């Protein structure tokens, strides 16, 4: 309720001196199933805005966040985005987690030419002029992870169980992974693809299938299992006697925030692929983590200073600064003028220096593979060489498509 009064406080500021603030929207679910993940993003965006305001704001004005709750209801995302853009007149929106919510608001942003900053790893196959995708594209997460597992150092795994929650990200991810594995000569029968519904809780059968699959050795799981299904999955995995040694799980949707206060004992040794971890050793990250914890504690948010940062949190935070820097470079919040400033924009993010692609709306960033520790943090066991360029259209599944806003106005065919 602390932040609620604050929101109201801000609305009053809005009516009295609306000229002096720049409004941005925050469109993350605060209730419903996605709240688990999205609330942290809302928190970190508010923190970034507070930081910016404390250091003088943007273009000399304070930034004001307009928070709405799309309540994990996809249609409400569209409704709320209209409201933010049309009624609340925000200059940009930070929001969305699931791809379906992004798809839902996309026509709205395109119709009204506003900008959505989307911080979550996603399946690609999209190249909108009105979305800034700071999360990983498949080639910035999936492919390096699979390559790593196949490598000698990664364990030389030969059999892959692709397990996901049944929705578009896992499906597309697995489509790309499968194409990749097949292209690397992994025989078809060594790849199994399986999906479970959202909130699936009973992994007994699937784990025993995996166990059978792993009986020959050299098998691993590539998991795009989402949200609250992960705990039952990992618990069952360990209880049926499987371990990271026998068959590691490489997760694409399990980050520190999900591990927070999970019983991590049985997760130790399993892997994940992201572009950022809280355990990154750098001064900027140390500060970021400390700031976030302090912020949560100060605001009395659930979890307080026990809160952790993770990949989407890092990029949601980065998004706010990307927006700020572009606006300041352009000297205006006008989308047409500030968007060009984003191309090639560099920023020292908590995850190290990153760079907006010079031609499209994705971020160039490093890929990291981490091993889960018993404290819910990751040991970084592999790191890409420098920044990896984004490929919104995977070379494996859409070989002749590419995304270029500078010279092609979006998606174009290579040939």
């Amino acid at each position, binding site marked *: *309720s602390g*932040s*609620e009064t604050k*929101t109201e406080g801000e609305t009053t500021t809005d009516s009295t001196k609306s000229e002096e603030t720049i409004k941005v929207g925050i469109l993350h679910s*605060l*209730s419903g199933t996605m709240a688990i993940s999205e609330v942290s993003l809302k928190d970190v965006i508010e923190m970034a805005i507070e930081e910016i305001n404390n250091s003088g704001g943007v273009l000399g004005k304070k930034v004001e966040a307009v*928070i*709405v*709750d*799309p*309540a994990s*209801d*996809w*249609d*409400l995302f*569209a*409704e*709320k985005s*209209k*409201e933010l853009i*049309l*009624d609340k007149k925000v200059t940009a929106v930070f929001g969305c987690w*699931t*791809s*379906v919510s992004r*798809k*839902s608001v*996309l*026509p*709205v942003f395109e*119709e009204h030419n506003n900008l959505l900053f989307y911080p979550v790893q996603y399946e690609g*196959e999209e190249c909108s002029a009105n979305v800034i995708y700071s999360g990983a594209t498949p080639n910035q997460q999936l492919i390096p992870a699979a390559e790593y597992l196949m490598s000698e150092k990664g364990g030389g795994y030969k059999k892959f169980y692709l397990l996901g929650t*049944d*929705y*578009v990200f896992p*499906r*597309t991810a697995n*489509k790309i992974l499968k194409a990749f594995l097949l292209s690397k000569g992994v025989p078809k029968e060594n790849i199994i693809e399986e999906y479970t*519904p959202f909130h699936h809780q009973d992994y007994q059968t699937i784990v025993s299938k995996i166990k059978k699959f792993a009986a020959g050795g050299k098998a691993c799981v590539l998991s795009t299992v989402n949200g609250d299904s992960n705990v039952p999955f990992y618990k069952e995995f360990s209880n049926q006697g499987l371990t990271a040694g026998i068959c590691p799980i490489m997760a694409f949707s399990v980050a520190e925030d999900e591990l927070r206060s999970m019983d991590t004992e049985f997760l130790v040794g399993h892997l994940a692929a992201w572009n950022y971890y809280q355990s990154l050793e750098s001064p900027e990250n140390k500060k970021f983590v400390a700031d976030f914890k302090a912020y949560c504690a100060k605001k009395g948010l659930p979890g307080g200073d026990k809160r952790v940062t993770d990949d989407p949190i890092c990029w949601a935070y980065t998004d706010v600064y990307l927006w700020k820097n572009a606006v300041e470079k352009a000297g205006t919040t006008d989308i047409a003028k500030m968007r060009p400033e984003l191309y090639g924009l560099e920023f020292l993010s908590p995850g190290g220096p990153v760079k907006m692609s010079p031609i499209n709306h994705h971020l160039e960033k490093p890929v990291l593979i981490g091993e889960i520790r018993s404290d819910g943090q990751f040991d970084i066991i592999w790191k890409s060489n420098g920044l990896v360029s984004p490929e919104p259209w995977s070379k494996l*599944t*859409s070989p002749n498509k590419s995304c270029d806003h500078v010279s092609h106005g979006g*998606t174009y065919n290579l040939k």
Partner: protein
Amino acid sequence: MKKYFNSNSLFYIILIGVFLIIMPIGNMLGFVSNNTISLWGRYFCFAIAALGVDLIWGYSGVLSMCQAVFFCLGGYAIAMHMLLVAGGEDPSGIPDFMVWNQVDVLPAFWIPFHSFGLSFLLALLIPGIFAFIFGYFVFRSRIKGVYLAIITQALALAMWLIFLRNETMLGGTNGLTGFKTLLGFSLSSPSTKLGLYIVSFLVMFGLFLFCKWLVNSKFGKVLVAIRDSESRVSYTAYNVVNYKLAVFVIAAVVAAIGGMLYVPQTGIITPGRMDVKASVEMVMWVALGGRGRLKGAIIGALLVNYLYSVCTSMFPESWLYILGVLFILTVLFFEKGFWGLIEMLENKINSLSSTKSVSNTNS
């Protein structure tokens, strides 16, 4: 005795005065935003679905927890049409999501949706026939009460799971989106939005009158009798299965009409609209407005959805409390829902004023 307060006229005055006259004119004059117009346009669609729920549940006592499925069937049919009209990046006109899934021929069941007429027809027929088949088996074997509620819920769950799949070729979790025009009108133009708003209103109003006629006919009385005692209706020589089936199909088609109007105004249709919760919510609108009162169904749907929109923006962290407590309080204090409350007020005011006038004449 003179009536000082007439809830009936109030209903019509507000409905027509505010929604059909003030709001559209306001929009044209620019003091009602386009967003408000499309918001209410969508609420009308929900109100349409609520009418169906009231028919099947309020009057016939059949708690169907799958109305959102029918709503979506109608919605998907129109969405498929609009998507085909919009075309994709692929020159073949196949929707993009199929291209990305390496589907290069349009699945046969999509073909009829090129034509608006056929799509319109199918949008009514598919839910109608689906409701007929499902209803036939369910009612024939005399599944009723909580059994029926749960079985329809199971149906909703199963349909939701199926629509979530990519194999269904309906866009999986992401659903269908990216519409541009409907019958040649650009969906993004304010006049189309206003047009859709007015059409939705008129359809809602028309269906309201239709349902009113229906429940006041002898057919409606049979429905209420079925709600009271199904077997007694049989002994009175009415074929209960036929009646239930008829009202189930009507409710499904009504819901589908709501869905058809909903999609062009929302711009997306996803399986999220038909999950278990969605159908339960429809029942809740009716319960809150006043079950067994068609006006209640409309008021309930409009009110709850309006509150939902407002509260999720104004009280993003506490709106659930507000809505939850509202449900509880309504139930505790207004036995017959929101419309029941208004009727009660009507009685109070009228009896007060009539006693007053009596005492006046006496003195």
